[in-house]
């Protein structure tokens, strides 16, 4: 009997030991990685005097990693900041691969008020940060720093201004989005970029007759290319439609512009696109266009580098691509939500450092790097594009030129609506394409989804 008692004791002991050991092991490993990190730092350059005082750590979360088009630019800017402020500030990056993973995790952090100091506040994260009290009104800082303000610009600031005049985010890019077309196919079918939506539909018919698939649509993921066309159809439908596509978070989608647009899209989905469009991913649509199978795709200028990339496009494809405004001279022109500053309640040093990082991230330097390396349009014209850059990026230059003659400008659905609306369009397009629901019912579902979003 005694024996069993001893064994019992031993067992209990090993159990607790193993738990403790686990923790210890981890702690030692943590220090292990720390030393590795510090070795990395010393590798970069000068060592001794910086170590006397620990640099203030600024937390930053990003989805611009891995295969993301801006990953290289992002890394360069962060490294430049860490170098410039070596010994004073250090940005600690949480990498969140893929946009969905980023948004989901940030929502969890928002719900327990632990958002990092700086992050992109897209897809409703900014609103959550304002509600949970972490977000800082950046307006006073903008006003106090004219050099920074010069490169942020009035337009970008006003775009992010709340009703009460406060500004909670600094945009990270200006977007102008038209559509790209295949010049070869257009000339073979004898059409030019449509000036009206009637002409657009008759162009589609002509293209189809000439043996080409007119549109690269996709309704999987966030139905991106399809929703761009929808935004264009609504946003160019007179003053009412245009006003609707410039309204943030509309509550009611049941209006004639939306229904007219959906009616037209229904025809496009059934007649004028690839067999795999319904349910396709962005990659499918892009690939269909870049492999020369489809005549048109709606998308922004960040797609341009792909046209000359032979792992993505057929050889010589870059010369075949033209860019155009939407019919009725429509153009999606908007700013991204951009970076928010979540330092309310944090230490003064951290607040100062985070602000410094935000300024750096939206500075002339950072905007130039993102333009050069990722084709991201700067916020103002104060950042000039060199003649070389323009020559190297003819399609982008053409689009910027065209943007001057746009009659209607408006935003896209991802920017104006709750993410639940975008999600709803993705699951309703198949029903629309298969005649399960009418455009009116589609609009009703969107209205309902808007109600459901909190």
């Amino acid at each position, binding site marked *: 009997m005694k024996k069993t008692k001893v064994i*019992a004791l031993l*067992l*209990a002991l090993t*159990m607790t030991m193993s738990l403790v050991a686990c923790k210890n092991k981890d702690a030692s490993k943590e220090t292990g990685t720390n030393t590795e990190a510090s070795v990395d730092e010393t590798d970069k350059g000068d060592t001794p005097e910086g170590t006397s005082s620990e640099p203030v750590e600024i937390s930053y979360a990003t989805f611009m990693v891995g295969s993301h088009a801006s990953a290289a630019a992002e890394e360069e800017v962060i490294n430049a900041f860490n170098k410039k402020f070596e010994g004073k500030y250090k940005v600690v990056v949480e990498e969140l691969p893929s946009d969905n993973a980023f*948004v*989901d995790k940030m*929502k969890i952090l*928002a*719900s327990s008020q632990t958002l990092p100091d700086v992050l992109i506040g897209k897809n*409703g994260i900014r609103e*959550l940060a*304002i*509600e*949970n*009290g972490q977000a800082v009104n950046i307006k006073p800082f903008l006003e106090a720093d004219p050099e920074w303000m010069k490169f942020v610009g009035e337009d970008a600031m006003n775009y992010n201004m709340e009703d009460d005049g406060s500004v909670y985010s600094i945009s990270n890019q200006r977007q102008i989005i038209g559509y790209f077309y295949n010049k070869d196919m257009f000339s073979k079918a004898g059409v030019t970029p449509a000036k009206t939506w009637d002409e657009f539909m008759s162009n589609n018919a002509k293209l189809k007759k000439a043996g080409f698939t007119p549109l690269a649509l996709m*309704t*999987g*993921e966030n139905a991106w290319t399809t929703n761009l066309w929808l935004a264009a159809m609504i946003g160019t439908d007179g003053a009412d439609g245009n006003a609707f596509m410039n309204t943030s978070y509309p509550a009611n989608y049941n209006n004639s512009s939306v229904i007219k647009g959906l009616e037209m899209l229904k025809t496009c989905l059934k007649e004028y696109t*690839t*067999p*795999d469009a*319904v*349910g396709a*991913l962005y990659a*499918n649509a892009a690939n269909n266009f870049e492999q020369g199978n489809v005549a048109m795709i709606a998308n922004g200028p960040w797609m341009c580098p792909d046209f000359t990339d032979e792992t993505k496009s057929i050889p010589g494809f870059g010369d075949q691509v033209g860019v155009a405004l939407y019919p009725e001279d429509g153009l999606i022109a908007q700013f991204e939500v951009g970076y928010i500053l979540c330092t309310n309640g944090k230490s003064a040093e951290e607040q100062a450092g985070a602000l410094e990082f935000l300024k750096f991230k939206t500075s002339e330097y950072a905007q130039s790097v993102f333009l050069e390396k990722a084709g991201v349009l700067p916020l103002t014209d104060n950042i000039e594009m060199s003649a070389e850059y323009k020559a190297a990026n003819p399609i982008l230059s053409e689009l910027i030129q065209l943007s001057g003659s746009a009659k209607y400008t408006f935003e896209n659905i991802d920017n104006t609506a*709750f*993410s*639940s609306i975008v*999600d709803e369009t*993705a*699951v*309703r397009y*198949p*029903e629309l*394409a*298969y005649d*399960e*629901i009418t455009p009116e019912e589609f609009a009703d579902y969107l209205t309902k989804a808007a109600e*459901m*979003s*909190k």
Partner: protein
Amino acid sequence: MTKNKKWVILFLLPGILLFSFIFLGPIIVLFGTSFTDWSIGKEISLVGLKNYIYLFTEDKTFMDSLKNTAIWILLQATFHVFIGTVVAIILAKKRWYSSAIRTIFFIPNVISSAALGMLFLCVMNPQYGFINTLIMKITGEGFSQNWFMDPKSAFSAVTMTWLPYAGLVTILVMAEMSSVSEDVYEAAKIDGASSFQTDIYVVLPLMKNIIGTSAVLAATSMLQKLDIIMMTTNGGPGSRTMNMPMYLYKTVFTNNNYGLANAQGVLLVLLGVILLKSIRKIFSMDAKE
């Protein structure tokens, strides 16, 4: 056996501690907040049964997700387990190919869902996909079925991404078959039973426990199934392939509506408890030896 009380406690203790650390908090939050109106950053307010009433009376998507989940549970607990068990019985007869097939059958289970989702999208692509190409080759005619998006085939297409992949059931049953002694087979042989008869009348009944366990695991896996659906149909068209875990996920992350999501969570847990109880009853797994 009462003298073993301290051993019982000691043996259960680690599990119970772990449960309290990991699951207790979330369960309390889940049940507690299901009676509230709660979203990130906003005040919590008690609303009684409002969330539940809403789900059952107004929320058509929820009712669809409930129905789909129920069908999938049923299919998993029956068909899926059946396939796995049959394959296990066949492979238990040692042949040259047994171990190879067992490994091959298990491989789909080790591929992470990020890749699996993409893979099924490609295989079932209406334009280039393997399935449609195969059908065209066989029939010699044009064929273009959008498996995941056609409202008529979406549900079956999603079901096929997991229903036949019963490798897990196979290895579970095979592991338990290893506990059947040679004597049992010998005895059956002496009694003149064919190998088929032995399998059906002698071995299968001995497998009752593990088949019940497989049914529990297969059925409850449908209470967690999410990524594949999200990547292939996103619950659409409409809500034809929406299930409960996915709707819950969307209610949390797309609509930020924690209160309503947790009411769904409570219903999911209740469904799970009913499921566990009934499967254990059907396979009389609680019966004493």
